[in-house]
């Protein structure tokens, strides 16, 4: 009891003067490089949405397929190759076009080829599967 008292007193004096962070454990580094430590990353909780309402989708199926072509070459394609020829939006890709045709005319496309005409308009050759007649579909759409 008597021995501990002086040690305790010394420790208290030291703590009062120097503070209590005397001994710190040294971390063992197994590599020479210091990498960024993993810290807590919180998800965002915004106090307000940046725009009041989200914008409409401008490239919906109605704006993708602009108009069908019924030129002589296009008619030939309908009869011989079972394909429909459409002018489409330039920003549409083949997946968009396939989806649009499915939604608007309820027809699956076997494959689609696209090209951009010299006047900047995209043309799509939409080949229909063998069990569907392109001429029938064209009649149903109404542009024959």
């Amino acid at each position, binding site marked *: 009891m008597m021995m501990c008292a002086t040690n305790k007193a010394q420790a208290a004096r030291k703590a009062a003067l120097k503070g209590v962070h005397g001994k710190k454990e040294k971390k063992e580094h197994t590599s020479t490089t210091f990498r960024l430590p993993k810290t807590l990353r919180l998800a965002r909780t915004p*106090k*307000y*949405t*940046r*725009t*009041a*309402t989200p914008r*409409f989708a401008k490239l*919906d199926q*109605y704006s993708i*397929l*602009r*108009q*069908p*072509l*019924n030129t002589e070459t296009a008619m030939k394609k309908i009869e011989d190759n079972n394909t429909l020829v459409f002018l489409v939006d330039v920003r549409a890709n083949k997946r968009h076009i396939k989806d649009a045709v499915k939604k*608007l005319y309820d027809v699956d496309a076997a494959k689609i080829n696209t090209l951009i005409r010299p006047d900047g308009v995209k043309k799509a050759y939409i080949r229909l599967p063998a069990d569907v007649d392109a001429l029938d579909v064209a*009649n*149903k*759409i*109404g*542009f*024959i």
Partner: protein
Amino acid sequence: MRQPPLCSATKVKVSALHEKSQAELTQSLDQYKRELLDLKVQQVAGAGASKGSKIRDVRKNISRVLTVITRKNRDSVIAQYAGKKHIPKDLRAKKTRAIRRALTKHESTRRTVRQQKKDAHFAVRQYAIK
């Protein structure tokens, strides 16, 4: 074989649109867009008179419906944020960039106590001089 047009291309009344619900409005929108598509196809087919005026009417109808939809959405958002401190940026007053960054009326009328005392004791006198 040709499908008949879904509705005649007359101008839709905005007051009628305001009474519709959101679901009905999106339905009308689809309807008008479909009609526009059909008109364009008919134009390509070259049947009958030019469809220009009808197409114009349908396009304007579509924009009327979109306007009403946006208006309703924005009104509900404004109501949702009413009285709150932070509101969406496109609902805040636009004015000009400089005005938005200027001192508020309260901030610009702030005076130090020293200045207040000066103003009180050594105010600029107004005389009535003949």
